[in-house]
């Protein structure tokens, strides 16, 4: 793995050490140390690329492209600001809403009973005959089973609930199905991924496949994996949903963006999620 970020960080530290007499790394955890959350949940942050993915040999979580300080925030739930959203969602989980006078807990008991769900979404839904993201499924539950109003796709409450479902699946390998009835959506997402767009004529792949680990202004480009979403972005000081991130990326190519929750972004999410098949579910992650 010549392209892994850790080696570069070490080189950078080496330069710093010669002038600053170390000190900076006195308490910082060794950047090559693997990610283990709370000392118990082992997270796979790089692994062999899934068979369908020809452009990459090794897939890496966005976590590997961040600084040691940011990485450390994910090692302990107390230090992870995204867990505030998870706590809020735990409260919402037990809150009765809608005409059926049900809460999430009425059907699903504890959130832990849905461990593993995050890992396989987006997923084909037989009854609705569509590929559903976790957000769509949550709104399905709300409108069909609870008699409650649907939440906005990127509403804080929605993103927090997705974060809760991610948190209980942490450490499990992402494993979204790309064949069967979901295949058409997946192909559509793949085409979007490799299609140049916007005034800058950039495809997703131009940055996240051809140039990952290179600098884009002052930031390391990641492989654009979404196993860590929802992500707590330090600059936004809140949890960010996958589609919000997509929107930001498309905007940066100077194109008109699709709407969060649109079929285009659902297809793209399915495809991008499948590129990360094999990485661990990591959300809520911390990114800059």
């Amino acid at each position, binding site marked *: 793995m010549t392209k892994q970020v850790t080696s570069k960080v070490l080189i950078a530290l080496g330069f710093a050490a010669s002038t600053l007499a170390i000190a900076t790394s006195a308490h910082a955890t060794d950047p090559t140390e693997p990610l283990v959350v709370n000392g118990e949940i082992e997270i796979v942050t790089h692994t062999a690329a899934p068979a369908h993915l020809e452009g990459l040999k090794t897939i890496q979580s966005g976590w590997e492209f961040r600084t040691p300080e940011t990485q450390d925030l994910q090692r302990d739930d*107390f*230090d992870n600001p995204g867990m*505030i959203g998870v*706590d*809020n969602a735990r409260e919402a989980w037990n809150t009765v809403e809608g005409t059926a006078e049900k809460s999430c807990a009425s059907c699903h008991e504890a959130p832990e009973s849905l461990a593993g769900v995050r890992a396989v979404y987006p997923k084909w839904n037989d009854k609705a005959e569509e590929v559903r993201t976790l957000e769509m499924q949550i709104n399905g539950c709300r409108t069909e089973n609870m008699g409650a109003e649907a939440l906005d796709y990127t509403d804080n409450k929605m993103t927090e609930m997705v974060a809760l479902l991610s948190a209980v699946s942490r450490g499990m390998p992402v494993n979204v199905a790309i064949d069967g009835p979901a295949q058409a959506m997946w192909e559509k997402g793949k085409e979007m991924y490799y299609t140049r767009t916007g005034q800058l004529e950039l495809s997703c792949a131009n940055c996240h496949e051809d140039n990952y680990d290179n600098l884009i202004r002052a930031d390391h480009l990641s492989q654009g994996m979404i196993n860590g979403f929802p992500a707590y972005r330090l600059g936004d*000081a*809140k949890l960010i949903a996958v589609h919000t991130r997509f929107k930001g990326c498309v905007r940066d190519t100077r194109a008109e963006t699709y709407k969060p929750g649109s079929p285009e972004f659902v297809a793209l999410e399915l495809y991008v999620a499948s590129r990360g098949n094999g990485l661990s579910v990591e959300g809520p992650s911390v990114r800059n």
Partner: protein
Amino acid sequence: MANDVRPRVKVPKSASAGETVTLKTLISHPMESGQRKDKEGNLIPRSIINRFTCEFNGQMVIDVTMEPAISTNPYFEFDATVAEAGEFKFTWYDDDGSVYEDKKPIAVS
């Protein structure tokens, strides 16, 4: 009172006498700086936590004055030397007069 304000603290359950322990505190709070404007161009009034204190058995451990530049969900990590068993008391003071408290006992073995 700002919405969803919830203090959290992490204190070891026990320590040996004279040991230095690390305390972590986090409070969820928007920390509105008072310098931002809303969509209509009106100033959003300042609403921050302006002081944080930690006491151990009535003795002050740390007393922090907080300013508007401090980010959302302020986090503090600091050390305290524990000479005897007792109770840490954490207090946050909000601009609007609200006071948030949390207490954690620590045993000495």
